[in-house]
């Protein structure tokens, strides 16, 4: 049954995936097994995305299916076993910019690749990044932005992280449609990632997991 669920999930057969998950639960399958199958399917979709065989619609469908199945499964789980994570990534769209599609894709891909992702949302004030780095102690900080105004917001964010004495504790990557290597130099980040796949490989490299 687990394989059927994985297949339906990966083929984007939403109704089948939900039906199979419910049937598994009704037959007394361990809810953790259902969740595990979904996670496996999510990883598979993430791999397809990395290979250029899946795109934004598939990632959105996957997170929709995951959300719906989790909503059914989670009330049946007494205590969720804690899973080992590769590392923590703090991510957000920098102050002044409210675009979130690219950031959400990166967060999704980091999540399915085993990172603990803390998404601060959009238009994130400089100080919030600093405060959250102090609180959560992430390995990696991802700064996202679409507009040219984000160049200076990113620069100011990196500068504030340095001034708070935290620059050595984190690796900083930037991404977004108008970003490139030159913008990376301008803002003082450690790397620029052209897409979500690059964000994952940079993060893995930085936590020593590649």
């Amino acid at each position, binding site marked *: 049954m687990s394989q059927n669920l994985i297949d339906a999930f990966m083929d984007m057969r939403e109704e089948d995936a939900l039906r199979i998950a419910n049937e598994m639960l009704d037959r007394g399958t361990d809810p953790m097994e259902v969740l595990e199958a979904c996670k496996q399917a999510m990883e598979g979709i993430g791999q397809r995305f990395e290979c250029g065989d899946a795109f934004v619609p598939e990632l959105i469908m996957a997170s929709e299916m995951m959300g719906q199945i989790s909503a059914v499964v989670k009330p049946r789980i007494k205590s969720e076993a804690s899973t080992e994570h590769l590392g923590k990534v703090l991510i957000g769209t920098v102050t002044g910019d409210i675009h979130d599609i690219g950031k959400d894709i990166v967060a999704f891909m980091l999540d399915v690749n085993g990172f603990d992702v803390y998404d601060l949302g959009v*238009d994130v004030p400089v100080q919030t990044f600093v405060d959250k780095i102090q609180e959560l102690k992430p390995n990696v900080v991802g700064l996202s932005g679409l*507009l040219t105004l984000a160049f200076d917001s990113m620069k100011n964010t990196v500068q504030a992280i340095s001034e708070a004495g935290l620059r050595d504790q984190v690796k900083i990557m930037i991404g977004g449609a108008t970003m*490139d290597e030159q*913008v990376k130099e*301008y803002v003082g980040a450690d790397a620029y990632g052209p897409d979500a796949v690059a964000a994952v490989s940079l993060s893995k490299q930085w936590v020593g997991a590649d």
Partner: protein
Amino acid sequence: MNQVQETLERWCAADGIEFVSADAEQAYKARARRIADAIQLKVPDRVPIVPSFGMFPAIDNGFTCQEVMFDYGKAQQAWMKTLADFEPDAFRGSSYAFSGPALKALDYKLLKLPGHGVPAETVYQFNESEFVSAEEFYDPFLDDPTDFMLRTYLPIACGALAPLKQLRPIREVFGYYLGTITSVIPFAMPEFAGMLEAVQKAGAEALKWAGHLAQEEQQIAAMGFPNSYGGGSAAPFDLIGDWFRGTRGVMLDMYRHPDKLLAALERLVPISIKMGVDGAKMSGKPVVGLMLHKGPEGFMSLEQFKTFYWPTLRKVMMGIIEEGLVPMPLYEGRYTDRLEIIKDIPRGKALYWFETVDIHKAKKVLGDTVCFRGNVPVSLLYTGSVQRVKNYVKELIDVVGEGGGLMVDCGIWFDEAKHENVKAMVDFTKEYGVY
């Protein structure tokens, strides 16, 4: 002579423009001819330079974006200064700075305006959301697009128009005993009085803004600078994704409601054509812009692009061409892997504006089909050096400009950029781009 040629010739003739001098008239005609030749893949006297100034004129001249959106005089001052500074081959004036007061009066929800939701110094930003659910959208829209726009969409998009949802469907209003009398009852409600007042205020502001733009355009043309931009339209997929269902919604619809999505896309084709053509015909200017958002590499697969995005976009562009006008899609994002698909358009009748693309492949695939506009990266204009800008423009002219078919521009409408870099992009094109 085909219809597109006729329109371009009329535009080049510049009839009805009162020029400030014979030199200005000569300069106008040379600039317009340069652009018309480039579009038609004839070799012009030199590569046209047509920078798409977004909020750059405001920022470069010390105004906040809020100031130029709420004070039309300041907008005009900023844009005229930019015109004098750069003397490009075409200039659109300050219409990128929309009327802030009109949008405020409507309580427009889909944009965050500078000083009202985003910082005063920065450009307005789209407030993306799933504005209507699939159930609220597809069947009602397919059944009657105008009724959907009037009673569902406008009340969501504009807070001031919320009372419209109380109206009866207009198509049910026939004779005196068949609805005419009862249909006007909502207008007695106090909220309708408020709505009418707000609409009047928005209308007055929009009229004032349009008056400023008309006067400004006359002045720009009289000084010898043409404007090719006659109207705007969009890809049907983006109309649904941007304005109704949101990116997430429209992407899910490809799986959940593919047939209805395809039907709605088709329904939008004639609407999109007319949207672009009406404005261009009224203004006599040849180009209809289509800012494309959701079709690039990474966003959707080639199969999805071929099924959901391209067919109706192509129909819209063909409809615009059949009306004797030049569609100008701005291919936002990366398009290298879909060049062969978008090549399917009549020769010399469209203008393809690229943000990110392999320029060698673009020239090879599209060089004998459409004129290429772009694609100096905005990151280069902002963080690069004068020399690096020149290097990029040189490569563009060497590769894409060979034998014609190039207009140099930034890859997108640009806001923040270094003055000297924009100057280098313009001046170097004028100097190095001579054929």
